[in-house]
């Protein structure tokens, strides 16, 4: 593997990894504030991709496509929270898994009904020739994905550290009862978490669709990649979600080069099983999921 290949696989790994990191982060935000692992998170990403592709197909300018996509998944997540999660606050873990699976099934069915079974395409954010570095080809979309993800991570860090809404979320992640005792409106925090996670899924879907195209059946795969990334980094830790996502992307990219691309999907799955069994706290070492 020469310098050219090393750079090439690093770029494609970081591109995919950024998307995984975003999904993992959105799962983490929901899990920390509500205690629910949202199995329908990948369907939010899928819906975002289809919405973006449709708007683009109607000649909407790219900037407006991005805003509408993000707004629509944020709204979708809020509706999902109000209709299905909020009414059953004391549900068992198994009931929560079933309900979020049910939401995933509903969203997949709606997507199939509205958009059909063919993949929809979306143009990259900016046109123009690819760039070259050490002989490796770097598409403009890859740069956009990596740059936007980096900016988002910084923005989220500031949100959690510097704003009252972010601080309230952190308090809820620490202990919901305690947060409620000091006067924090838990319901408001929870719905904020869903909106934020929906927006993140929207951004992920908008960014990845020009690379992979959008298809109704891809939701559960996104969820699974998000799980793998979150578990790899340490479930429940935002920093872990980012590290896990990027690492998973790189693993898949270099792994796909070493083995064959058909078995590429196995890498994230085997990584997930191994990390859960051998080091359940993940890389940053969070408390173990029960």
């Amino acid at each position, binding site marked *: 593997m020469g310098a050219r290949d090393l750079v090439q696989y690093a770029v494609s790994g970081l591109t995919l990894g950024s998307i995984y990191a975003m999904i993992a982060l959105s799962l983490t935000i929901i899990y920390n504030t509500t205690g629910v692992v949202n199995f329908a998170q990948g369907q939010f990403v899928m819906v975002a991709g289809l919405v973006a592709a449709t708007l683009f197909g109607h000649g909407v300018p790219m900037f407006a496509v991005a805003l509408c996509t993000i707004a629509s998944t944020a709204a979708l997540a809020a509706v999902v929270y109000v209709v299905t999660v909020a009414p059953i606050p004391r549900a068992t873990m*198994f009931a929560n898994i079933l309900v979020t699976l049910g939401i995933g*099934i509903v969203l997949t*069915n709606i997507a199939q009904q509205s958009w059909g079974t063919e993949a929809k395409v979306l143009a990259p954010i900016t046109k123009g020739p690819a760039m070259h570095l050490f002989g490796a080809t770097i598409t403009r979309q890859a740069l956009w994905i990596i740059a936007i993800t980096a900016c988002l991570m910084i923005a989220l860090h500031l949100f959690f550290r510097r704003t009252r809404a972010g601080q309230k979320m952190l308090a809820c992640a620490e202990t919901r009862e305690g947060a409620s005792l000091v006067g924090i409106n838990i319901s408001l925090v929870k719905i904020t978490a869903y909106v934020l996670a929906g927006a993140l899924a929207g951004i992920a879907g908008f960014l990845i669709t020009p690379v992979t195209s959008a298809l109704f059946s891809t939701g559960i795969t996104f969820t699974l990649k998000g799980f793998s990334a979150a578990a790899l980094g340490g479930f429940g830790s935002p920093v872990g979600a980012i590290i896990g996502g990027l690492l998973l992307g790189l693993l898949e990219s270099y792994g796909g080069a070493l083995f064959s691309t058909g078995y590429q999907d196995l890498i994230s799955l085997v990584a997930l099983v191994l990390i859960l*069994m051998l080091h359940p706290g993940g890389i940053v070492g969070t408390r173990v*999921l029960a």
Partner: protein
Amino acid sequence: MTGRIVAVAVICIGVAVPFVISSEFWLSILIFASIYAIAAMGLILLFGDAGQISFGQGGFYGLGAYVSALIALHLNWPVWATMVIGAVAAGSAGFLLGFPILKLRGLSLAMATLAFAQIMFVLFRQLSITQGSLGLSAIPAPSIGRFAFDDSRRYYLLVFGVAVVVYFLTRNIQNSGLGRALRALGGSEIAAASVGIDVRLLKSRVFAVSAMSAGLAGALLAHYVTYISSDGFSLDLSILLVVVVGIGGMHRPLGAVLGALFVAIVPQYLSGSLQGYSALTYGVLLTLVFMWVRNGLIGLVDATVSTIAAGIRAVTHRLTRSQV
């Protein structure tokens, strides 16, 4: 006593069905329902009694299907034998996998088993022997002597019979010492260990039993549809089997039966009456049951039965008092 009468009545109805329903389509729906019920009954022991979640059932189902189909195709062994081998292969895989994977609990276990199911799917898709999405075709039907189970009515009777056997086996396991040990495990792992139950071995055993039921169901499917490809064994299948138990109720094998009937019949019924909105309605229906019905459909049935029984008791009580 009433339980036995109900059981005999249900079996009689089940046997009579193919002679009343002549529609090939509805018979195939009932065959699928029986197959799902067989795979889901293993999950009753695993979820309902032992309290362990698994999304891996689709992986074992696929393993049973491919092992049985491949042996029947390449070695020409009788299908009876290959089905048993398929089920045993899935059970053994479950036993071996159980030791490492069942160290995990709750959500970690759900994710790890989900990953296992997806790993199996990728293998079915990529390995040269399973022929990926091209698939295996001309899988032979089972036969006794010259009597082949090659039409829907005969095959229905076969899978219904197997489902009845698996049902009673599940009931027997629940009522045995093993079943009590499983419920102790489901109640509290530490308490179960403290009364001398070998928790790890027990978990692996129940995982093996549930994997075996899935493998058997998969084998029954392969020799019915005569063509299998990797597309049929995706994550959707594992999720479907969890949905069967979730919708039917996870504490009694009858829950698996009700759930299997629900997922096999309701979507077909809806698509007949609602066309375009059927899939959506079905999904919404599932979500509503998951949200509001505790213990699934079987819980709903139990509650209705006990309300009616209480009503009858109240009426008879009043009648006898008025006579005095």
